[in-house]
């Protein structure tokens, strides 16, 4: 489970459409560092 936590990180992602901006929670593989 620890490995999985390190591998996939939850992150807030900003989305911009023609109607406006909002954010969603997505998963990204943990290679950001």
């Amino acid at each position, binding site marked *: 489970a620890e490995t999985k936590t390190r*591998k*996939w990180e939850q*992150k807030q*992602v*900003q*989305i*911009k*459409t*023609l*109607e*406006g*901006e*909002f954010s*969603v*929670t*997505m*998963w*990204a*593989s*943990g*290679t*950001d560092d």
Partner: protein
Amino acid sequence: VKRNRSELANTYEWKCQLSEPGFIAAPVSCFSHAPLADCWENITVGMKVEVENTDCDDFTESFPDSFWVATVLRISGYKALLRYEGFGQNCSKDFWVSLCSNSVHPVGWCATRGKPLIPPKTIEDKYKDWKEFLVKRLTGARTLPSNFYNKVTDSLVSRFRCGLNLEVVDKNRISQVKVATVRKIVGKRLHVCYYNAEPDDNGFWCHEDSPLIHPVGWASRVGQTIDAPEEYLQRCEEGTWGENDATDEYFHVPQPSSCPLGVSFQEGMKLEAIDPLNLSAICVATVMKVLRENYVMIRIDSYDEDASGSDWFCYHASSPCIFPAGFCDVNSIPLTPPKGHEPREFDWTTYLEKSNLTTAPLILFNREIPAHGFVVGMRLEAADLMDPRLVCVGTVSRVVGRLLKIHFDGWEEEYDQWLDCESPDMYPVGWCDLVGHKLEGPRTPSTKA
């Protein structure tokens, strides 16, 4: 990767084959030397990306380029089949793209650049406000890491650079190495030019992890013959290296021997080996000389007589390309017998008894079989090692433990190559496109002519 257009003229694109029924590409993670191989398992079907929206009106001044979210439907090597979000089961606008190209981004990339996502024309009237739909589709889904493109760029960087000197198997005399200089690097494949080469000599190509290249001073250290200028040999003796000399740290060190003390390859021992001059053949061979650091000189017994020793070839004892006597028989692989013997009639036991010969003991060979993941029918890109500047489309046609038979599409079986599953001369589908190397397509009737 920006490359000269003329170099990439007529490069083959997999496009038309990718959607064929039964097409299966070897996964990127099978190629440990390939860019992003270590993190490719995190690239999965169902992942969302932001990608150029080509289903739109001509570019407007306010939005010169248009992006939308897409889902990864299939992955073949570095290529992915994408479907724009909102298309449901409609596959009319599905498209293949290289996941590493600069037109594919993690979700969120557009917002950081102030670009609004613009829905494709086909579905633009489906919703008045796309927010609710996108929140539903994107929440909890996976996307690429925000630094994915940097990862791609980093993974393409070679540890070598142009101008470095190294020792390379002499393509004109395979029993020796020759000093050479790196002239060009494409996708970690090195184009080297030999010292003292003829003006029309086009040098040699190999991957930076190839066992055919060695650090400066290697030949004199292990006892291999080298062709080099006097000044270089002098430096080898003194151990004085310059900034343009590729020293040990640039190279992979072969596995040390795990044999019990006293057991080692000896001159005269018989074995089976991939013919370095015809990679479709595994042949009866002889250990001609034992060098230092577990290197051995091997001669293929089916070659014509040549007392000069120019046809010997250097293999490391841990090489996966040499096998114990009987390997081919056990695995139903045709074995090329020694010169003067008929392939159908050759039998190891009779041969050894008649000539009072011994075979190299089983324990000396690398018998480790990694969980490589290759299966018959998988498609890939592979260097033609008889002309290694060419990278061609190929198919895994046999798997024998860690040994793979690579068939070059459209060519006769005699052009097949036996390669180890960890060979750095094989690449995932889309590798050439990613690194800017020309890809040779399958042979067609016109190319045959």
